[in-house]
């Protein structure tokens, strides 16, 4: 095909007037081109945010690679047009298109949307709207794409359930083949959308919201959620890839032309986390911990470096230090990357002698900073959230780091955690101050190059479904801000306050995120109303319009406080209770009670706590360990 024949959906004039036109032209290295007449199913996979964010997401690359290995399927990519192009598309009535073929999305069989954070919900409506697909699933006809959602926010799909035909609950590697084959079968005879959806509901892990009915009590909480058809199961267990060393993984990830957030080879070393921090949703959703083989990781690291030409490789996992063969993997990478002049990036490592030694080999100590995530300022509160990180360990890590030449430290904390008191918050400043003091004790004056730089950042705690804190109240906006001001004040009272910089997140968006995270079906109308008022790109603070959101709640007669500020009763039925992530509600409840008592729970490698994830028959639950077997 002659290059000048590949026709773009947008004219030169449009592409010249928008920012970063390369976001919209496709044709990147390793992008998959197929002949549309030779495939049966066309799948548009969307990350509902701007290109640079979406292209940095590993999950999409895995699914894109997997679907394109199916001969009968062509999967293409799609991201949100930035606000400048959004305006042009609306003005000129140009339908939204997928990057590879540049064909309109509405001509596709499937539109898959990954749900990575709650603040993208209005962008889902932007995608549907610009594509010319009815926003409500109930208004769609035989020719509209099947709109499917997946990813972590699909674990509470209810606030957006009316915009989706179905949700895929869990890991994408397992059920797409079955779903697509079912679709092909249904297409062979006259396509009946409802009949297809009813059959799809019979596939494990598939949730079809239109097949369920929810009734409410007078206080607004859920009375019951019932399937309306026999095909729809009363509870849906998440899908899980049991063997991560023998499954789909991209050998040739797409290489963007423009600089994106994650502009490197990404090697996912394991899924899940042994730690069980009580605020962390990912730590529960991806249980049990499953590691990939060293041989698998070596093979894919080399293949991906060769096929992309990237000059950097990064390890990905929730807690890389817990990967059992980390030293061997790192030795291999250091040797290979030195030979090939590749940089290694090692996020999510716990700071200790081993990791500092590794980091000093792979990065320039003077230019890099170290990150600690104590999450809470006091030991009392760290025990409540089950963050197994003590002050001694932090200070010892800092001492080793300062001896090794580091002078910059980043500290991450949360404000508004359950049972937090003023003295816990004061602990943030005190811990920052102690770390600074360690620097001045450790590094003699003649070796110092100015002050130590400590950056303490706080985010506001948002209770999430399927965590022990799913029952917890969330702070109001004003409480959040008071806590941030108090943190700032107590930091400024520290002896080494000149070495400490403090940043905090915005409060309004955190409140909305909390509403969406634990919301129910009634929020669909609020999101729709907010979108119609002009809300989108809510995850971008410069585009977040809190006043419009508040108007939307008011007009829909929905009290946002209902979703956030009350402590939920232990007998309350949650909107996400019909989903089963593998971890039982009883276990989460026990953890909520242990949190209240300040009891620390050992991690999965120390001792099995019987969370329920052993039912998948794989991973850490079946490894030998010191404690009792699962």
């Amino acid at each position, binding site marked *: *095909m002659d290059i000048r024949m590949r026709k773009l959906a947008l004219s030169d004039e449009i592409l010249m007037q928008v920012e970063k036109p390369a976001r919209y032209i496709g044709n990147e290295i390793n992008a998959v081109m197929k002949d549309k007449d030779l495939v049966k199913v066309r799948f548009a996979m969307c990350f509902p945010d701007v290109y640079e964010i979406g292209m940095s997401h590993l999950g999409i690359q895995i699914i894109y690679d997997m679907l394109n290995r199916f001969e009968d399927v062509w999967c293409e990519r799609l991201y949100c047009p930035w606000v400048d192009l959004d305006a042009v598309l609306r003005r000129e009535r140009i339908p939204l298109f997928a990057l590879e073929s540049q064909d309109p999305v509405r001509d596709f069989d499937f539109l898959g949307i990954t749900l990575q954070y709650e603040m993208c919900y209005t962008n889902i409506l932007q995608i549907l709207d610009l594509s010319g697909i009815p926003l409500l699933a109930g208004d769609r006809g035989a020719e509209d794409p099947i709109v499917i959602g997946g990813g972590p926010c699909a674990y509470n799909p209810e606030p957006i359930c009316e915009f989706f035909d179905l949700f895929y609950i869990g890991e994408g590697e397992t059920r797409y083949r079955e779903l697509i084959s079912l679709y092909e079968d249904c297409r062979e005879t006259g396509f009946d959308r409802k009949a297809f959806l009813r059959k799809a509901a019979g596939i494990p892990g598939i949730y079809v919201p239109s097949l369920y009915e929810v009734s409410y009590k007078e206080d607004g909480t859920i009375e019951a959620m019932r399937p309306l058809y026999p095909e729809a199961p009363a509870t849906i267990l998440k899908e899980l890839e049991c063997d991560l060393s023998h499954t789909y993984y991209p050998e040739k990830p797409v290489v963007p032309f423009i600089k994106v957030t994650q502009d490197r080879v990404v090697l996912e070393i394991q899924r899940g986390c042994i730690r069980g921090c009580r605020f962390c949703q990912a730590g529960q959703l991806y249980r049990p911990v499953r590691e990939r083989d060293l041989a698998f990781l070596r093979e894919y690291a080399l293949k991906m470096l060769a096929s992309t030409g990237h000059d950097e490789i990064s390890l990905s996992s929730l807690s890389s230090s817990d990967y059992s063969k980390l030293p061997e993997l790192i030795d291999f990478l250091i040797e290979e990357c030195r030979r090939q*002049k590749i940089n290694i990036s090692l996020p999510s490592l716990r700071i200790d002698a081993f990791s500092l030694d590794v980091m000093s080999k792979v990065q320039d100590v003077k230019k890099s900073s170290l990150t600690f995530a104590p999450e809470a300022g006091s030991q009392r509160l760290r025990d409540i959230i089950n963050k197994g990180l003590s002050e001694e360990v932090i200070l010892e890590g800092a001492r080793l780091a300062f001896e090794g030449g580091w002078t910059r430290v980043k500290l991450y904390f949360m404000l508004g955690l359950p049972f937090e008191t003023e003295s816990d918050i004061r602990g943030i400043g005190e811990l920052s101050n102690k770390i600074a003091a360690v620097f001045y004790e450790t590094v003699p004056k003649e070796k110092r190059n100015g002050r130590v730089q400590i950056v303490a950042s706080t985010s506001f705690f948002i209770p999430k479904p399927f965590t022990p804190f799913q029952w917890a109240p969330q702070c109001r906006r004003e409480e959040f801000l008071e806590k941030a001001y108090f943190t700032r004040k107590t930091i400024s009272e520290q002896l080494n306050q000149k070495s400490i910089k403090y940043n905090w997140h915005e409060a309004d968006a955190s409140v909305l995120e909390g509403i969406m995270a634990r919301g129910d079906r009634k929020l669909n109308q609020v999101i729709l109303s907010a979108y119609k008022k002009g809300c989108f790109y809510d995850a971008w603070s410069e585009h977040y319009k809190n006043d419009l959101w508040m108007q939307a709640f008011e007009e829909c007669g929905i009290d946002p406080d209902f979703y956030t500020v009350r402590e939920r009763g232990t007998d309350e039925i949650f909107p996400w209770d019909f989903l089963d992530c593998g971890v039982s509600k009883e276990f989460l409840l026990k953890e909520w009670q242990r949190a209240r008592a300040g009891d620390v729970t050992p991690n999965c490698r120390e001792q099995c706590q019987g969370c329920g994830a052993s039912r998948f028959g794989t991973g850490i639950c079946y490894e030998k360990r010191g404690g009792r077997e699962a």
Partner: protein
Amino acid sequence: MKVRVKFSKEGPIKFIGHLDVMRYFQKAIRRAKIDIAYSAGFSPHPILSFASPLSVGHTSQGEYFDMELNSLSDIHELRERLDGEMAQGIRILDAAILSEGEQNAMASVAAAGYRVSFRNPCVFPEHLEQELVSFYERDQIPVVKKTKKGEREINLKEGIYHLEIRDHEVYMLLDAGSGSNLKPGFVLEAFFAEKEIPLPEFPFQIHRLETYKMEEDGRLVPLLGGDAWEK
């Protein structure tokens, strides 16, 4: 050893900016397993230098970069291998080992040839074609150029080495030296401004035909091979 590579950039890939084209080639060189030399330090980077940036939206058949190699088996094989790693729209046209003492691509750029077509032919009717030629044929073309430091008057004529019109397209040979670089769009905008004819947004499609260096005898020759420029 230094190798100079000539490439073209056409089609939708014209929307990739200069910095991204540089990053694109760094990756392509790795994929092609070319034994390029790296700088020292903690984050070594391949030693690569481009002749002259091409604006977003412009196409070209005369782009160049130099790279420093540790080893090379065969220059034709290198060219083939690198060409095999290109995205649609970029082709490797030529590659050659530079002789000792050859100036680097960026420093040697003296001039560039362009072909400018009008997206909308009505913007450039035939009577204007004649007027553009007369505009060029004057001895002095004083125009005001906006720079970072303010405005200054320059004589446009000094930077236009040649201008002619063939088949409604404007062919220009312009000064492309560092500091005196003249953009083809700027020349045409100056002409339309003098005629007081308003231009629509993005009126031109600009294509770079070749990039030239200057020989000691004053002849302009392409950065790699090829014949000296002649009218």
